[in-house]
């Protein structure tokens, strides 16, 4: 198995002959070069910005200095691959709105931006000299020692590491051998420094596990909040229609009914009768509409009664065999109820079934629901089906919705939602 990073490579035999020492050297070399450029850049822009800040024009420059940490970190993540190929994702979040202003406020609010700025300062001030030192000790010095015989041949004498004067060939080749040993030791030194350096960099500029975890939790929460808000809005609309429009329409039909009693037979009575009928139809339609938005029986009596009620309304005869020990949470009841309604509507519309069955119960901390019909099958939960949205709602509650509908039937819809009885 190939080592996954320089640390793993260091513990394997044959490290010194592998590509890893050279990758480490490359990492440290590019680090040194970047560090020098960065130091010059930061010092220049900070000084210029600081001086010009007196005239306010320097402030954007100082801002740029802070934000310089971002491209530097991006480059570092790229360089990291030399010694640690595991991807280091970008810790920044996309700004909520388009435009420079939104981008700036998002970035300046993020902890990652400031961590990256700190990293850039550390890099420019401390890290690159360490890179350079490690390169000198781990690579350049052993190389010059190895090169002793060459130097002797060229200059007639060689001063190894500016300490030992070598004039004879035996000593020169002795130093060359020592140099090879040092080169191997240097390879390990380079690996250790590069590995430590990469670890520190990853710590500073890659998103932390905790951050990622927090973001996932936050996402899940925001989805739950959205569904809750949706549910609350449904109930509000239902209440508004019920207490407003429905009451007025009932009062209207009542008034029209009384007026009809008083009206003498004739065209006026006919008109009144027509108006009365229309108002009655409007009332019936409104009642169905309100029921579809949020059935009262679900709130008052819970899932079992609401499913029985939905079965009563179904065009296809439905057997209900549902056993729940108590009420479930509002969100679970609503999701389960609307799944059953949608399933029964599909049975009525598409399946050609002569009979359907809704069964289920609460077992092992889970609500199970099964909607089965004896229709022709071939149903899909894909595009255009109301089931997709319901599957999403079920998944928000950590539940699952599965559909099995081979051509020729039978169609089987299964819902499973983890939940505890509320009472």
């Amino acid at each position, binding site marked *: 198995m190939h080592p996954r990073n320089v640390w793993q490579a260091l513990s394997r035999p044959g490290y010194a002959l592998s590509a890893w020492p050279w990758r480490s050297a490359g990492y440290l070399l590019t680090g040194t070069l970047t560090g020098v450029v960065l130091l010059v850049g930061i010092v220049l822009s900070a000084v210029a910005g600081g001086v010009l800040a007196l005239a306010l024009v320097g402030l954007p420059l100082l801002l740029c200095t802070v934000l310089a940490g971002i491209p530097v970190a991006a480059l570092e993540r790229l360089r990291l691959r030399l010694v640690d190929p595991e991807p280091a994702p970008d810790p920044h979040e996309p700004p909520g709105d388009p435009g420079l202003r939104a981008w700036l406020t998002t970035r300046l609010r993020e902890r990652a931006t400031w961590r990256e700025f700190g990293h850039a300062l550390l890099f420019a001030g401390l890290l690159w000299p360490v890179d350079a030192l490690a390169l000198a000790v781990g690579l350049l010095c052993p190389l010059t020692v190895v090169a002793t015989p060459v130097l002797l041949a060229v200059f007639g004498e060689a001063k190894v590491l500016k300490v030992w004067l070598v004039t004879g060939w035996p000593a020169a080749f002795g130093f060359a051998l020592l140099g090879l040993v040092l080169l191997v030791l240097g390879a390990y030194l380079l690996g250790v420094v590069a590995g430590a350096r990469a670890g520190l960099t990853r710590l500073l500029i890659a998103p932390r596990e905790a951050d990622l975890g927090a973001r996932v939790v936050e996402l899940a929460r925001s989805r739950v909040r959205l569904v809750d808000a949706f549910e609350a809005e449904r109930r509000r609309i239902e209440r508004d229609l019920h207490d407003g429009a429905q009451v007025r329409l009932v009062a209207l039909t009542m008034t029209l*009914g009384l007026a009809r009693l008083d009206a003498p037979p004739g065209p006026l009575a006919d008109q009144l009768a027509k108006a009365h009928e229309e108002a009655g139809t409007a009332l019936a339609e409104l009642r169905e509409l309100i029921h579809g938005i949020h059935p009262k029986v679900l709130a008052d009596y819970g899932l079992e009664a609401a499913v029985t009620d939905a079965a009563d309304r*179904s065009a296809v005869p439905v057997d209900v065999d549902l056993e729940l020990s108590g009420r479930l949470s509002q969100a679970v009841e609503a999701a389960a109820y609307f799944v059953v309604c949608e399933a029964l509507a599909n049975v009525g519309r598409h399946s050609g079934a002569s009979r359907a069955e809704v069964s289920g119960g609460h077992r092992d901390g889970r609500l199970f629901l099964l909607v089965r019909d004896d229709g022709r099958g071939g149903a899909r939960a894909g595009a255009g089906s109301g089931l997709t949205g319901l599957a999403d709602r079920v998944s928000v509650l950590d539940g699952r919705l599965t559909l099995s509908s081979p051509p020729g039937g039978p169609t089987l819809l299964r819902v499973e939602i983890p939940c505890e009885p509320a009472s």
Partner: protein
Amino acid sequence: MRVDRPLRVVLAEDSVLLRDGLVGLLGRCGHEVVAAVGDAEALVTAVGEHAPDVVVTDVRMPPGFQDEGLHAAVRLREERPTLPVLVLSQYVQRRYAAELLDSGDGTGVGYLLKDRVGQVEEFVEALGEVADGGTVVDPEVVRQLLRRRRDPLERLTPREREVLALIAQGRSNGAIARELVVSEAAVGKHISGILMKLDLPPADETHRRVLAVLAYLRA
């Protein structure tokens, strides 16, 4: 409109608009609303005070706007099993109707959609029926139940089911005969068929009709 006898009514309805409308409507038809209240607690108190001939109440009422009115009605009938109660609901719901019919001995109760108050004559007729100990269930609930062809109703013929539906709506034998354009004797024959198939032993005729309706609702 013909009114057999003027009734003393206690009315509970939280919407002022409908309450005033119903008071006017009942007054117009010769009945007297002795108390018109806006919540379930006041309803129970008013019934204690006035001992009315019949109670008319909404299902959804303050403070919770759930089924307070219905529960108040059920509670009232536990204390006074013969108190006639007509519940008005904005929903067609078998569950509400069943809870009401289970209270007391199932006689003198009605469950109607609010829409029906617009059909003034039918509404007042139903009120009279309930006050006289009859059982009235909204045709809409009945229609829903007819779709469910399950035991014990499976044994009934379509005609018998039709007759049972009309019984549930509070019709007399004569009214049923007129509606179905058959003789009253034929209606009687259908009814005894229904009672036999639903396993209701011969007893007081009115009471058995109620039991048949209950069997129908619980099916």
